[in-house]
């Protein structure tokens, strides 16, 4: 990411000691295996040769993809992306992270501005028409967050006719409308907490993993209730019909499931708040 590099250079010029922590530190030890070889002409070969990859992820999603003052994103999505990059033979400092928001994910993939996207990205048929998905690597589900002392709302049925906060243009918002709730919409989930506190909405509803992050950040004030009432398989977005690359990522995911790297990635990030569940089977469509 160019701007980040500029920022880092500028920071270094200002002799900010604070940044020392983010550049060195926890780069993984190079895997002892010999560098993988790929068939010429494939995306994998191209990326490996360049030694660089651009990955789209969220920058504002606790537990999955979140940027702090160090400037490097962290979270489960980020760890998964790093595993894939590693399998391509690309070191961590060869990764350029780009923030993807819901409005720019598909366009970025289509125009090649990112090589792939790992960003709590729900696989669905409409999206499959413009891009392809590897995975899924995680199964989330829409759930409900309420104030900790609210005992009236126990499941999605209690939301009918009530005001519920979610994010504009997101799948959860559409689900809420279908359910008969009144969606109250904003741009980011952190904005949703104030209406909840003020009693303007009775609940916040989106994927359970996002809600768990919000609840964990505000200890004791909120709770997640009910069982997830939808299935949101998170996939890795890449260019439409790049089947070789898709199969490669699927292979990497399955390998990571088996050798424990997947579980390790989870425990390091989302696992601090959420229990580990067995990964879903990848869908080799």
């Amino acid at each position, binding site marked *: 990411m160019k701007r980040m590099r*500029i920022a880092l250079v500028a920071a270094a010029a200002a002799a900010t000691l604070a940044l020392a922590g983010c550049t060195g530190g926890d780069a993984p030890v190079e895997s002892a295996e010999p560098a993988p070889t790929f068939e010429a002409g494939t995306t994998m070969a191209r990326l490996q040769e360049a030694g660089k990859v651009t990955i789209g992820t969220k920058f504002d*999603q606790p537990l999955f993809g*979140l940027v702090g003052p160090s400037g490097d994103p962290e979270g489960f999505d980020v760890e998964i992306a790093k595993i894939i990059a590693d399998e391509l033979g690309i070191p961590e400092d060869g990764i350029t992270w780009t923030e993807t928001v819901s*409005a*720019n994910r598909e*366009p970025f993939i289509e125009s090649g501005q990112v090589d792939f996207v790992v960003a709590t990205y729900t696989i669905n048929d409409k999206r499959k028409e413009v891009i392809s998905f590897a995975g899924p690597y995680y199964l989330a589900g829409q759930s409900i967050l309420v104030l900790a002392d*609210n005992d009236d709302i126990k499941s999605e049925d209690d939301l009918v006719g009530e005001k519920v906060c979610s994010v504009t243009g997101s799948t959860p918002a559409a689900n809420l409308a279908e359910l008969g709730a009144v969606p109250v919409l904003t741009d980011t989930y952190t904005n949703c907490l104030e209406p909840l506190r003020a009693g303007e909405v009775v609940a916040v509803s989106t994927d359970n993993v996002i809600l768990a992050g919000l609840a964990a950040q505000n200890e*004791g004030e909120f709770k997640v209730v009910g069982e997830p009432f939808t299935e949101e398989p998170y996939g890795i977005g890449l260019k439409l019909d790049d089947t070789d690359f898709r199969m490669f990522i699927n292979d990497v995911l399955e390998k990571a499931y088996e050798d424990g790297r997947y579980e390790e990635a989870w425990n390091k990030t989302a696992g601090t708040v959420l229990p580990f569940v067995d990964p879903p089977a990848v869908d080799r469509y």
Partner: protein
Amino acid sequence: MTGASVLFDAPGPKARRRSLIFSIIAGVLVVAALGWMFLTLNAPKESGGITLPGMFDASRWDIYADPEIWSFIIFQGVWGTLRAAIVAAVLAIIIGVLFSLLRSAETAWIRIPTAVVIEFFRGMPVLLMMLFILLVGSTGQYWAVVWALAVYNGALIGEALRAGLVSLPRGQREAGLSLGMRPLQSKMLVEFPQAFRQMLPIIVAQLVVLLKDTSLGYIVGYQELLRVTLNNLSSFYGNRYLFSLFVITWLLYLAMNLSLSWFARWLARRGDRRLRPAKGGPLPEDPSQAILVAQANAAARQSEDNSSR
């Protein structure tokens, strides 16, 4: 009408006292309102069965002791904002110059399409333009923000420059032509530099708007001050810091914009002294006021022209 003093009698002792008392009452009311706001914000609040600390409680402000957060806010946020604003400003001025020249062209088939294009850009929300450029042009976030701001503000600056051109005394152009210059030469060498200088404060005022509007880059996920603080950092440290991040963001914007406005005023004063317009009237100190006066002047001249033909 410049001084407001015409509107009321020079106050006598009694009126002065009344005015003073009124002043004091108003002042006390303002201070009381601010104090009440402070106290209300600082009151602890019950929520979800636990008590949240007040907005000015130390626990909501402790993250700022860490220099890392400041380097992030400054080098990612403020720099992200300035980096987009500076490039967009340069482009906007270039586009504005082009627009104003095309818009005041002699030939109708240049003038009219330009007017339509300007009207189109002026009427589109910047948010929509950013999104559109990102999706259609595949430019990446940075250039989507820069181009949207450049085109929109370019259209407005172009209109200001045109008003400046029209408001010039006609003799300037005539003098240029009588010196054997071709119309375009006269425009570029004689009229335009004057219009530009006269409109400088307005252009800078428009640049304040441009700087503020970089905050709309959130729509395409561009990392600037507002997104870095109210989105990234508030997600990272948690919602508890939303208020303090809001206050800090606000202060940073005020600092940036007020320095730019101050610069605009300084330019206006300086330009005023050196290049007092031939007509003699001093340029109003306030840039936004200057544009209105200039527009009114321009319109007046235009209508004079029309009626004399």
